[in-house]
């Protein structure tokens, strides 16, 4: 839940229907979220901003490939 109390801070604009929201230093340094920013990616994408998402997502797909390969390999054991 959120209570409101306005103080001037650094802000960013994410859409024309959303008033400016606080700027995040962590997001600029690797903690940006690809899904949240999906529609803004063509303008804002940088490896530095989405580092954690990109690395983890790619490693995740590597695990998918490994599991699929493992499943296939198991079905070939003992086949003549």
């Amino acid at each position: 839940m959120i209570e409101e109390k306005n103080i001037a801070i650094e802000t960013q604009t994410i859409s024309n229907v959303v008033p400016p929201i606080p700027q995040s230093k962590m997001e600029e340094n690797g903690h940006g979220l690809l899904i949240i920013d999906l529609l803004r990616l063509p303008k804002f994408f940088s490896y530095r901003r989405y580092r954690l998402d990109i690395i983890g997502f790619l490693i995740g797909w590597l695990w998918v490939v490994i599991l699929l390969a493992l499943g296939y390999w198991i079905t070939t054991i003992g086949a003549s």
Partner: protein
Amino acid sequence: MSALSMLDLAVIVVYLVGITVFGLYFTRKVKNSEGFFMGNRRFGKSLMVAQALTTGTRVDFAIGVVGASSEIGMAGIWYQWMYIFSTPFYWLLSPIFRRTRYTTTADFFEERFSKSLGVFYSFFALYLFILWQGTIIKGAARTIAGITNLPESWFIWGVTALFVLFGVAGGLVATVNTDFIQGIFIIILSFLLIPFGLQAVGGFSGLHAKLDPQMFSFISQRDELSLFPVTMLVISGLVGIVAQPHHMAVAGSGKTEMSCRIGWCYGNFIKRFCTIGWALTGLIATLLLTKENLKDRELAFGALVKQLLPKGLIGLMVAAILATVIASCAAYMIAGSALFTRNLYKKYLKQTADDAHYLFVGRIVSAALTIGSLLMALYLHSVIDATVHFVMIVAFVGIPMWVGIIWPRATAAGAWASIIGSTSTWLIARNAGWQVGGQLLSAMLVGFALAIIVSFLTRPEPAERLRRFFALMHTPVGEEENLERAGLKATLE
């Protein structure tokens, strides 16, 4: 006469006593409703992995995959591997859940769209929890009754009492801390039958010599799991994953965003690995079980346990099944009571009361949900039917969640139109006799189209509502002072 020896019974009793004492030990740490529902968001990486593995791995999944694979071969694996391509997305989604700082998914619908959608989601989720618990209890009861020759009703009431004791007494803290032990039992359950089965059929070469080569294919020639329905189940699995009601706790109760990411993603990868064991067990069942045993394919798992395992290990398998039931049902029961207490009772029935009162209500609701799930168990035809039914309906609620997260212009009217339109399309397609793949494709296309079109045709949500929601989305955990400086104080409820 029971098929259980004294050794089997000793293994089960040691397990039950041990896990109950262990769980009750952690009840001392539950002092408020936040601790009961979200474990005070203090879980580290390993506990988050264990929680994701155990709440996401249910005995009815094993029973369903083993049964399907015994009939259609390795392709039966897709009844659970439909989520394998979604799993990398868990890495991207878990920080979103954590950043919302919400306790339940109904909070999401209320904060992003409207109160009415929050209330709708609460009832939808309660239905899902009752459906899941009913499926688990039913599947496990049938299997263990088959193994032990004991009356099914004994098991139903016994195991229900056990997970109610766990969940009601200890909340999420007790459940998650015992998940480590349950996780080990789940892995045991997944692979215990394989060595005994392979020995009985003459190893892998024996399997290949005696089975049709088609049984080793991951794509079934039968309509049930051919390429198109599998593809649609995979897509709907990804769409619906955000709307599964327990995922707010599974993905959002970690200490940090990284513990949430690792927990949800890798807990589920371990589950995908276990699924290979279930499918292989199904192939073994095809050779070893007679047509009498396979009259109902969902009895294959229990029949195989009874036929293959020596004394002592049968008890261990029964304990493993009990472990998955307790872990899953206790987690669902807690998530369901959180939904009712916080999103319905606290908001619409009794707005001011001390925390002890809400904690008490949460515990009462937990028990009530369990009774509902016992009744549900009586109406279920099969475990697989319940699984497919779930994957479909949850996807229809997942569509507005995805659209609402990605697109600030999405409105509550668009979300309502999407849910009603996709559900109606699905009902029409099903009654017209369309196959599962066609039902899902048409319903999801209508759902996404209506979410976008109706949102464009209606006024955007109030600017302050959108500002609050997207400010949370763009504020990583640990940077809450940013919100406070902007006049948006976020408290983890």
